[in-house]
């Protein structure tokens, strides 16, 4: 028997005899015979721990990874430094082998950690309330949009094309099933073309300005007038997908003037230096929390963070931890405001989310505890300095052109004048460097455009090498 199954043949016999059966097969008589699998599953045979370890190490070796390669890829997943403490804390079995904290008396550790996480997310974003995490940045932004739809009773969303392309895809998928009308605001010179917004915020369907009108369902939404409109929310990302800082304050005021909510998708490291959504009049802040102490992991598990003004708390999806007291008036923590959730409200719940990304939220909390008020600023500033150094060096080669004059923090886009991006990236990879994102895949008009992220982990030497090889020099 497997080492994960402790009962022996003798145990099994004793247990069967207690039940009054003579064989294990008799336990499965409720299953119609014709429905039973009459053969063994066609799967590879079982492996010992040593064999498994060898197999998996072999698979891991087929990947290039950031431990050996200098990574300049970002686009929503970043190679930030993860302090040793994070892994140590996440390895504690009391945390990682526990379930959702339904029994608060023996789950105070996780509940308090999540309460602290919620506090830190609020500190970082400047918002009033945070939930305990969502699946990822894409679903966090999508659920933020659904909060807006529920709160305003409207179904039209104006979404900047600077929002991560995959987040927009997820929003559209969910939108198809919730009768949302999603219209995209184009980019101009690397930032959201705010001048288009006045046109778009007029009568729905004024699609002259809409780069990608994905009107789906609902043809009877109201008409726009000054002050009021049929818009549920305006969604913008800052820094946007191309790395450029957007004017959140402007979006906050614009949305408010139209009776819509403003939703900002923000980067948790960059906002250590940028005026946070809460200080810009934004209603809901969402984003990808991976950069807070979570490894790249080929795209997951990550965590979405979702924080809002107090007024929206009862419309927020997902777990929320609250403080309370016990019989003896001692401080304690519980899952709260559960009347929003699926296990209580079933089809009337605000979302179907059940499991979130608790352990990733714990990683984020440990990361923020370690970095603290000063460390997160220092890390963000290292990104800022190195990204600007890299950009200048690239322009200095004469092989790359600027795409935008907008301010940026850790990521920026350039146009290659000498070669296709794919060729540059392939050459870099041969030299132990993971190059930036070929933007044409996501923005068909952005041919030869390259999105580079420079985190605090990149050294001057790595940047210099990347620039030289990207410009055509071999080594």
């Amino acid at each position, binding site marked *: 028997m497997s080492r994960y199954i*402790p009962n022996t043949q003798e*145990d*099994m016999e004793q*247990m069967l005899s207690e*039940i009054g059966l003579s064989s294990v097969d008799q*336990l499965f008589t*409720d299953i119609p015979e014709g*429905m039973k699998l009459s053969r063994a*599953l066609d799967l590879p045979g079982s492996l010992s721990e040593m064999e498994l370890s060898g197999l998996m*190490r072999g*698979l*891991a070796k087929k*990947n290039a990874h950031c431990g050996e390669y200098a990574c300049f*890829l970002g686009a929503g997943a970043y190679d930030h430094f993860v302090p040793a*403490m994070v*892994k140590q*804390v996440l390895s504690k*079995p009391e945390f990682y*082998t526990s*379930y959702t904290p339904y*029994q608060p*008396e*023996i789950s*105070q*550790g996780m509940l*308090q950690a999540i309460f*602290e996480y*919620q506090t830190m997310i609020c500190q970082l974003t400047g918002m009033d309330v*945070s939930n305990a*995490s969502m*699946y*990822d*940045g*894409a679903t966090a932004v999508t659920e933020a949009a659904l909060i807006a739809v529920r709160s305003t009773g409207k179904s039209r969303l104006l979404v900047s094309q600077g929002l991560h392309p*995959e987040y927009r895809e*997820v929003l559209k998928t969910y939108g198809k099933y919730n009768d949302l009308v999603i219209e995209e605001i184009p980019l101009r010179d690397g930032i959201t073309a705010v001048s288009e917004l006045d046109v778009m915020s007029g009568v729905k369907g004024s699609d002259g300005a809409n780069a990608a009108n994905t009107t789906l369902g609902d043809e009877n939404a109201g008409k726009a007038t000054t002050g009021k409109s049929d818009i549920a929310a305006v969604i913008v990302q800052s820094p946007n997908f191309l790395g450029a800082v957007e*004017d959140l*304050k402007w979006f906050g005021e614009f949305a408010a003037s139209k009776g819509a909510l403003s939703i900002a998708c923000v980067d948790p490291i960059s906002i250590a230096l*940028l*005026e*946070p959504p809460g200080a810009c009049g934004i209603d809901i802040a969402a984003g990808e929390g991976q950069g807070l102490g979570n490894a*790249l992991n*080929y795209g997951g*598990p990550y965590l979405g963070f979702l924080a809002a003004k107090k007024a929206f708390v009862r419309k927020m999806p997902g777990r*929320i931890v609250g*403080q*309370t007291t016990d019989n*003896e008036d001692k401080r304690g923590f519980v899952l709260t405001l559960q009347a929003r*959730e699926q296990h209580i409200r*079933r*089809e009337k719940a605000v979302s*179907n989310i059940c499991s979130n990304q*608790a352990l990733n939220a714990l990683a984020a909390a440990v990361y923020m*505890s370690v970095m*603290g*008020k000063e460390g997160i600023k*220092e890390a963000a500033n290292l990104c800022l300095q*190195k990204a*600007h150094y890299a950009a200048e060096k690239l322009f200095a080669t004469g092989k790359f052109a600027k795409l935008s004059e907008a301010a940026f923090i850790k990521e920026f886009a350039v146009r290659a004048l000498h070669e296709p991006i794919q060729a540059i990236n392939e050459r870099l990879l041969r030299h132990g460097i993971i190059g930036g994102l070929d933007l044409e895949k996501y923005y068909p008009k952005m041919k030869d455009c390259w999105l580079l992220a420079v985190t605090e982990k990149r050294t*001057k030497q790595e940047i210099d090498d990347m620039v030289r090889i990207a410009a055509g020099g071999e080594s």
Partner: protein
Amino acid sequence: MADKINERQVNSIDNGRAELEDRRQIEQNNREQAMLIFEMSRDGRRAYSLPACDVPVKEGLIPDAFARRRDADLPQVSEVDVARHYTRLAGRNHGVDSSFYPLGSCTMKYNPKINEEIASLDGFTGVHPYQNEESAQGSLQVLYEMDRMLSEITGMKRVTLQPAAGAHGELTGLMIIGAYHRSRGDAARTKIVVPDSAHGTNPASAAFAGFEVVEVKSNPSGGVDIEDLKLAVGQDTAGLMLTNPNTLGLFDENIEEIARIVHDAGGLLYYDGANANAIMGICRPGDMGFDVVHLNLHKTFSTPHGGGGPGSGPVGVKEELVPFLPVPVVECENDRYWLDYDRPQTIGRVRSFYGNFGVVLKAYAYIRTMGPDGLKNVSELAVLNANYMMKRLEDSFDIPYKRICMHEFILSNKKQEHNGVRTLDIAKRLLDFGYHPPTVYFPLIVHEAMMIEPTETESKETLDSFVDALISIAREAENEPDRVRKAPYTTVVSRLDEVKAARNPVLKWGD
């Protein structure tokens, strides 16, 4: 000069005393309640170290209008503070490694350590999702083979690994069902049928996917009421969501008829894989007539629950639904793995990137460890353990559905109720015995339910000890009911005021 030194020394002694007092107070508090990390914060303390900037530092890179004016007030603590803080918190938490965790419907089986080690290999953790396919062949191979293995286990054609959790898988599966009907011009199929015994996520996911929910009753033996189902289905039926074994831990013997009724009405069958731990290698949802299935890798396939996630909720579909799977789908040709985005009928994306890869990886390692015979043993032992416990408890507790169960079973407090002892009280009293209680008050169709799922990773001795604890609580409920009603006594906090938490929400430090 000398005076000043003395003064400083005196001050320092005083400060030392004051600090000692503080420290005593802090330790006192810690026994009472764990401090919040913010309460330990002191200006100037730090737990981080970063290298000096090795490129020329420039000022003014961020325009004033955008620059942050007030710092995020994150805690300032030392590294040892952080280490002790989280060690203290871990001590106030209970996991599968702490002791038996028979939480019904959650499959709290042991989480193998080698899988944790594998998932922390640099060659997996350090891979960026947008690296080119050539440089991520190892990860893509894991995803592709996982699709193949889970397809075999469930009897499906293909499996997407993009959904991040079970509920996310449900949503994805229902979107696929919707897209399928629409592609056939059958847009009037707007209703999803859900039994009254279903998990809360089922109706919530159906509503979230834009469907109307129709509830069907359970029959006296806990299965779907066939007559009620016949009335519920029709030309507007998009599908039926079913857990089999159901949430009572019973296999629905009428599954063939149920499938026929739904299919004849033009609907599809959705399998909620929450209870798949009972059937591996024994029967397959695909062979039962299901068209769509989701699995919970964090239940059946041993990946840790992480205090509420990350999970992973892969969705498998029959051949005719493959075109609707979310993009991208991992494909393989001549031993080369690649991501296929060119799928015109796809429902789109449900998550960024490719899902919770790190979780999929652990489940992959688990399946490779167990092999086909091992997985079948898992289900056999999960079912044997549950039946053994149920048998041993039958004299002390009411068992609403007394027949052979699958991997879990239901008790109620009917024998304890006359003493004013509720299921919640029994659950709380179990805490004093060092156990995590069963799932309580679910399923909703059983009054004061207690749902026990032992899993296969527990020994007979563990099951016996837990049963003994429950029997002694039953005795206590008879002789000393107040003792049960006021439990727990040994936990770091006693029963918490949940009403207060909801009425006057304190959702962050400083609220």
